[in-house]
Every structure is written in structure tokens, then in C-alpha cells.
């Protein structure tokens, strides 16, 4: 029996076509499926927002936290991909120290890991050159897909790309999750970034949860009008799942109008308020808050210096150059 299945799936045109379809179309569904299962539209409010806590990472000088993702991003470009995975491991240390809530961990896993997996998948299919070893060669019936099949070289290259996605996202999200928006503005201003850019960043982070609250509210309003957004009871039943996806997609233009109108009205008022509070009148803002570097900040600075030094050593002596 197993031999028959092997033969059917791997040595017949029908079987190989079915596998190729699954690779092409089922794998990319993993991302949306994970998103719907573990995050959902309503879970979006917890993405990219500050999570209050008393951890040592929260207490660090916001300027250091702003520099951290920039530094990690530069190092990830300089290092070879194997060392980037080592760097990724190091970026997990701050996460261990700040101990995010399980809701955040779940969301983080989905929004960081799913794109990384998809990056590996897409490069595996489309980063191919003649002569590459193919793990699975696509049959003639899939010629329209524009690829010879799933290649080893492509998967490896995808892993390179994924490493950089993972390390950058990990570092950037530490900054976003542990820095109050007011500190974001303060830090950007201290680091001589434009006031307006700093405010735009702050407003974006402050109002992102409001935007998702409004999306939630408008979806409820549509449901009150009879539009059904409820998830299927049995998500693996294709008909229910397809119907749910269709309803969600059809609702997008419907939901956009009230959200857009409400946001534009809010933006207009915010602009009035920002102008009336003299935004941009002086080149150098003064500051209410004064921050002196503490012990934890000094330790973080030393860690940063060590990281740079370690990278230099790896590049020069460890074959870690990109």
C-alpha cells in the first residue's frame, strides 16, 4: 500500500501535479491561516503598541532603545547569514528580560515567523538557476507557474533573507513594545530627527490601537445591520471557510468609508491642535523631561560596544563577512 501511494504521488503526473499545487497554493495560506487562528482582526489592536511593564528594558533610556534596532540592522547587513542567526539569538535576550504577555508572544510569533517562513518558501520556488538541485521538480502541467520546482539553493537563500527579517523585526519590536510614544518623540528629538517626523511617529503609535478599536466598532455596526463576520464553527470545512473569507473581502470597501471619514476628521482636529500648540515654531524644542544615564543604561551601552567589537572580530577572523 505505501508503495502504491509513493508511486501515485511521486511517479504519476496527477500525483506530482497535486503536490506541486499544494506547494504553490497551500503553503502561502499558512500565513493567513495562522493570522486568523491566533490573531484575528480584533487582535490587531495589540500589534505595534506599547505594553506597560516595570522591566529593566522599559526603564532604559529611550535614546538607547531607538539606536538599538538601527545598530542591529546595520550589523545584520555586515554579517554572513549564519552569524545573523547568532545575532538573532542575542536579540532574544531583551525579550527574555522584558517577559511580554502571552497574547503578545502569540502575535509576535505569527507576525514575525510567518513572513520569515514565506520568505524561505518564495525563494525556494523562485530563486533557481539551471543546474540547481531540485528537492521537488514541478511536472509539465505546472509549467505556467514559472519555476522548475523547489530548489535547495533557493531555500538556503530564503533562509539568508529570513534571518535578516527575523533579526530586524525582533530588535525593532523591542523598541516599540517598551517605549512610550511620548518617549519616542523625546528620543527622536534628542537624536536630532525632525520634530514633525517625531510627532508623526508618536501619533501613529498612540492612535494605532484606536484605529483597531474603530475597525472593531465598525465591524460590529455592520453586523448589527445583518452582515455576518462570525468565524466558521469548523474552520477546516472549506465551504464555510471560503464563505467567511469572501464575506471579509467583500466587506473591506464597506468598512473603509466610516473608518476613513472618522480618521480624516480626527486628523484634521489633531493638526489644529498641533499647530495651536506651536509645533515646529522653534528649531530646538525645550524639554519637560530630563533623563540621566543610569546603571542599566551604562550596562546596555557596554553590551552595544561589545556587540560591535564582536562583529568586527567575526568579520576579520571568523569568516563572518557578508
Amino acid at each position: 500500500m505505501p508503495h502504491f501511494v509513493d508511486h501515485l504521488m511521486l511517479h504519476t503526473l496527477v500525483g506530482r501535479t497535486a503536490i506541486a499545487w499544494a506547494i504553490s497554493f497551500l503553503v502561502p495560506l499558512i500565513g493567513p491561516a495562522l493570522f486568523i487562528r491566533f490573531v484575528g482582526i480584533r487582535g490587531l489592536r495589540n500589534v505595534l503598541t506599547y505594553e506597560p511593564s516595570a522591566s529593566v528594558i522599559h526603564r532604559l533610556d529611550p535614546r538607547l532603545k531607538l539606536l538599538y534596532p538601527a545598530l542591529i540592522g546595520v550589523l545584520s547587513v555586515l554579517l554572513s547569514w549564519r552569524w545573523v542567526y547568532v545575532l538573532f539569538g542575542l536579540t532574544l535576550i531583551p525579550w527574555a528580560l522584558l517577559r511580554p504577555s502571552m497574547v503578545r508572544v502569540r502575535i509576535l510569533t505569527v507576525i514575525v515567523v510567518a513572513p520569515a517562513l514565506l520568505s524561505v518558501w518564495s525563494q525556494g520556488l523562485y530563486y533557481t538557476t539551471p543546474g540547481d538541485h531540485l528537492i521537488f521538480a514541478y511536472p509539465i502541467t505546472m509549467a505556467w507557474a514559472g519555476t522548475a520546482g523547489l530548489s535547495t539553493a533557493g531555500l538556503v537563500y530564503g533562509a539568508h533573507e529570513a534571518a535578516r527579517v527575523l533579526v530586524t523585526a525582533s530588535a525593532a519590536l523591542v523598541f516599540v513594545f517598551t517605549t512610550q510614544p511620548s518617549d519616542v518623540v523625546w528620543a527622536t528629538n534628542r537624536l536630532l530627527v525632525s520634530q514633525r517626523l517625531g510627532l508623526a511617529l508618536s501619533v501613529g503609535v498612540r492612535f494605532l490601537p484606536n484605529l483597531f478599536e474603530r475597525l472593531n466598532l465598525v465591524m460590529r455596526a455592520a453586523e448589527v445591520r445583518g452582515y455576518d463576520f462570525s468565524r466558521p464553527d469548523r474552520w477546516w470545512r472549506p465551504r464555510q471557510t471560503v464563505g467567511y473569507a469572501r464575506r471579509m473581502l467583500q466587506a473591506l470597501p464597506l468598512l473603509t468609508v466610516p473608518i476613513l471619514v472618522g480618521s480624516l476628521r480626527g486628523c484634521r482636529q489633531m493638526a489644529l491642535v498641533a499647530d495651536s500648540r506651536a509645533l515646529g515654531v522653534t528649531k530646538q524644542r525645550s524639554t519637560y523631561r530630563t533623563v540621566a544615564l543610569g546603571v542599566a543604561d551604562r550596562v546596555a551601552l557596554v553590551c552595544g560596544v561589545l556587540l560591535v567589537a564582536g562583529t568586527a572580530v567575526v568579520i576579520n577572523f571568523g569568516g563572518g563577512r557578508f
Partner: protein
Amino acid sequence: MSPRFQLRAAISSFRYHEQGPAVLTGIELSFRPGELVVIAGPSGSGKSTLALALAGLVPGRVGGRLDGQVMLDRGGDGTVDLTSVPLHEAAQHVGITFQNPEYQLIQYQVAAEVAFGPENLGLPHEEVVRRVHAALAAVRAEELAGEAIGSLSGGQKQRVAIAAALAMAPPLLVLDEPTSDLDPVGTQQVMEILSGLSHERGHGVVLVEHKLDEVVRYADRVILVDGGRVVVDEHPRRAFTPTARWHAAGVRPPELVTLAELTPEWFASGVPLTVEEAAQALADAGIQSCAARRAPSPPAADAPRPRAASAMEVCGLSVSYKQKRALGDVSLRIAEGEWVALVGANGSGKTTLGAALMGFVTPDTGTATCFGEPVRFGRIAKQADRVGYLFQNVDDMLFGASVAAELEFTSRHQVAAGGDAPAAAEVATLIGLEGRWEAHPYNLSGGERQRLALGALLTRAPRALILDEPTTGLDEVHAEALFDLLARVRTALGSLTCVLITHDMRLVARFADRVVALRAGEVVLDTSPRRAFAQGRLLADCGVRPPEIAALHSLLDPDAEEVAVSAHELSSLLSPSRERSLHAALR
């Protein structure tokens, strides 16, 4: 103490578009330090535009054509034309706050929000700190300095918005309906702060408001704007008489003023602005108690009707958000055809109870049923077959590009409607929008949009409606028109159950059969409005203030189990000759 100043607005006309109608015409006003001025007017009368003009926002920031000037005389420091200076400069002379504090607070933390303006001005660190502390102290919000904006209540947010405006050190403050989203206690807190700012600290305060009953006692002047013109500009004791011009403008004067007009012989010393003043005037007139002439037993229509079939019922319902209890073991039965008002302070759980009845939230424990069927939490579309939910902000409910698209939503989006669902044209006639079939919803007035949203719900022929603060932002005439429409719907459908979540006690008095008061997630009072308003102390614990007339009745007769809820009722009750007509009125 705020410096000496005088603001003079001399506006011949202001138009939003070159060829459009004049929104303001022939305005001649002046404002001084230490004065709290209330601007009232019907929706669309131009009072908010006047507020923008006083703050120097027109025409420069808002756009339009202004013929006139808004001049600030700063005593010995010269004169400034606010319409021609940059906005940040105008904001240091006249601060402005808007109706919704949400979009006025652009920082994450309270202290950072208040410091934002002084920081932008480049003031020295010590001066920024001094201004932040002074502004927060002025609004009694020092303890909030370290709080996140998102964690504040509506009243606290409004106080922080006022503090942020004060931190720019303007001598004059303009506030456009700052209390519209607040419960009565929050409103009173904000009004006391504004009164302190003007009368103790010498700021000029200009307040655009609908809630005349609640704010007029603090005012030094009342201005009525109608059709873009100033119709009345008087001390509050003189501003409302005769009341005919207020009624003609579509603004209902305070109930105590109406009482004084109905019985002028008792209020010879002047129009009362507070319940205490009215009680004193009645005492001076020899009417110290109406205990001997108590209102008769409530008519049958006022009492709960336990025998009618149950429309909605919750049993042992508990709901919590992030380990914080919003509802605790609430049991409630609402009979078919009943109009029940859920009242209580912000955060008391009334919206959560409405949300649980609609299936928006999943309870920790307990059950909810609706017309005999269990409410399945999260299955909102199914629940909407029987129950309509009118959101506080109806703009969130309007999805179509025309009135027709809204009323034909069910057919256009293949949404199932009940078998006896009325045709869209029928609903359009019922809500009075039959002539505006192709109009875009956003081109309708606030009252029309409210009616359209209600009409959209009615196309599914609901047997019950849950109305969440349906009168926010509407003037009293539009609010009553909405409830008159609901009464017509009740007649048209034969029966309609209504759950009204509101802070507006005058509407509760007029339209509700029953009042359910919540405090900290628990039902503490469940009775008819007349009996509920007789329990002022308990209501005060719930953050609710009874209508002024009910409070006056309670003051005159502390043992009364039921109180009058309108000036006409109380005047009849207090006049023996009118007693018979009172019985008729109560029935």
C-alpha cells in the same frame, strides 16, 4: 491672576465658501477677564463657528471668507488681530478645546501632553515644569500627571485637554461642548473647574453648550445664537425671559426658568438658576412644602409590567475586561413593549449591559435571552434579526453613498431580513427622508443622520432597540424629535421594546417607563422615573443627577416617594387651583 484684556469680535459676515450662505452675520461681542459666558443655540446655528472665530481659527485655519475682526486688547501691551496672526500665537491669547477630547490629546502621557505646547515654544525647562504643574493644578489633575492618556475617563481626558490649552497661558479659554460625552457628575466637575478658572483665577471662559440646565448656574452671561446672529446677550437671570424667543429658536430654556415663567408670582425676586434658589423663592412666597399636595399614585402605565412576555432577560450576568469587573451578577427582566432607561456614571456598566444583550461581549458567568432564545455571544448578525443597536456615533453605522443605499443595505448585500420587514420607501417616509433619497449620508445634518441610522435598523423589522447615548451632540429639540419618531415607530409596529443608555435625565423623564440605575456593575435601583428621581441621594451615589424640577420637588418634600418631572407638573402641584389638571397631566 490672568492679565487684563478685552476680546472684541466684530464680524459682519463669515462664509465657508465664497458663494455660500453666511454662517455668521452682524456679530458684535466682547469678553472680559473673570467672566464665564455660555453660548447656546440650535444645531447648525453657527455657535461652533463663532467659537472657532473667537480662537482665531477662521479664516486662516478653517478656510472661508471673513468680513470683520477679532481684536484682543492686552491692556498696556497693545492690540492683536487674532484673525491675522499665526495660530500658535493666537493660541497664546485664546485657548480652545473641542467636543471630543480623544483627538486633542496626541501624546501618550498626561504630563507630556500638557508640556507639549510649552516645549514647542522653546521655553526654559524650569518654566515648562512650572506651567505643567500650574495647568494640572488648575484643573485638579495633578495626580494624573504620570497616567497614560488611554487609561483616563472621558471627564479626566477633558480636564487634561483644558490643562493643555491652559499651559499655553492664554487669558481667554473657548470650549466647544466640552461636556457632551460626560455623565452629570463629570459635567459638574468640569463646570466647577471652569467656574474656578474664571471667577477665582481671572480667566475669561467662553462655553458653547447644549446642557443649559446644568451649566447656567455658573454663567455670568448667556448668549443665544440663531441663524448666525446673536439674538440674546444677557445676564442669565434676564436672558431667558420671555422664553418664547428661545422656543422659537428651537432651544429649550432651563426647567427652573419655565417654572418661574409659569408662576411669576412666586419668583418676584428674579429667575432662579439653582434648585436652592428656587426653593428659597418658594419659601419666601409661603410655599414651603408640597407634602400636603403629593402627586397621586402612579398611573398604570408608569409601573413595570411583569405580566407582559419577556423581551430580554439576563440572569446572574458577570462581565470583566482585563480582570476588571464591569458587571457583577446582574439579573434583569425587560418586558415586551417596555422602554427602559439604563443610567449611571461613566464606567458603571450600562454600556456593557447593553453590549451583553446584543451579544457583543462574552460574559464570565450568567445567561442572556432575547425573545425566548439565548443570546449567542459573538453571533451579532443573528441577534440583529430581533434587536437593533443604535451606536453613539451614528457615522460608524453609515456605509452607503446615498440614503437609498443605506435603506436598501439588506438587499444590496444579500443580508437576510425578516419576512415582515418594511420596504425601504416606507422607512424613508417614516423617518422623514423620503425627499432625500439620493442624498449622501455625510451631506445630511446630525439629526437627519441619526434618523437615517435608525431607519437602517428598522429595515430589518427589529422587535427591540438598544440605543447607546442616542442624543449626544443633538440639541434638545432634535433629541425630542428622535424620540417622537421612536414613538411613531412603536405605533407603526404595534410594539417596540427600547433599552435607552443615557445621561439625559430630561429625556428619561419624558420617555422611559422604567429606570435601572447601575453603580460599579451592579443594579442598585429599578423603578419608575418618578420614584427613581425621588431618591436623589442614591442617584447621586450612582453619578446621576435628577432633572432640576425633580430635585426641587424632593427638596420641598423630602419624604415624597414620587416627584414631578416637569415645570408644568410642579407648578400645577404647587397651585391648589391647578391640582385637578395635574392629575390629568400625570395620567
